[in-house]
């Protein structure tokens, strides 16, 4: 097989970056358990998924996590840090 293109939606960007994902998006400030947003926020969920899928057609740097901001989420949660 030749491989399958993937994109990761992560709310733990530092942790995910350790695995050097081919494409990844971090919805800034979303808490763990809310990768696409909050329950019922369907338009926000659609926007996050559209933005994730759009990374397949953009020039991204493999291994890098792209940060996107969604003010409509309405909260900011500090993501987990990698212990050094």
């Amino acid at each position, binding site marked *: 097989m030749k491989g*399958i*293109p*993937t994109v*990761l939606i992560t709310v733990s960007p530092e942790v995910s970056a350790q695995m050097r994902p081919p494409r990844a998006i971090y919805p800034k400030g979303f808490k763990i*358990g*809310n*990768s696409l947003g909050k329950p019922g926020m369907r338009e926000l*969920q659609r926007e996050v998924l*559209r933005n994730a*899928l759009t990374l397949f057609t953009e020039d991204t740097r493999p291994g890098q996590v792209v940060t996107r901001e969604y003010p409509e989420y309405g909260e900011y949660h500090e993501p987990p840090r990698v212990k050094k």
Partner: protein
Amino acid sequence: MSISRKCVPFTPFEGELSKATVALVTAGGVHLKDQEPFNIADELGDLGYRVMPEDVDPSQLMVTHHHYDHTDADKDINVVFPIDVLRDLQEEGFIRGLARKHVGYMGYTMQLKAMYEDTAHEIANEIDKGSRADLVVLTGG
């Protein structure tokens, strides 16, 4: 198939999203209610995975995972497993459609080598064989 440890396993996509079929693979512990739950009693974690069909009914899904708060996913599975969201994007023509198979596993294990060398390969092969996925969206909890 082997997964390189040294370089990023980047597979290019040269098609169009509007012609692509998409599969979901989540580490959020999502599975069908009538499938065997993940084993949260084992401190080493559960290396298994569950396959969900294209026409899966979200009301028949549940989460078994004790390393994140899945209260919100219990209310709306789309916050970790955006199956209805994917259907919306199909309807609006953003993507062509959903793959025949989607996968859930419990993204917690102390058996990292086995997860990396066995489970990850099995999931990739599952998607590769018969799912008709052009692209995969990965989500955590």
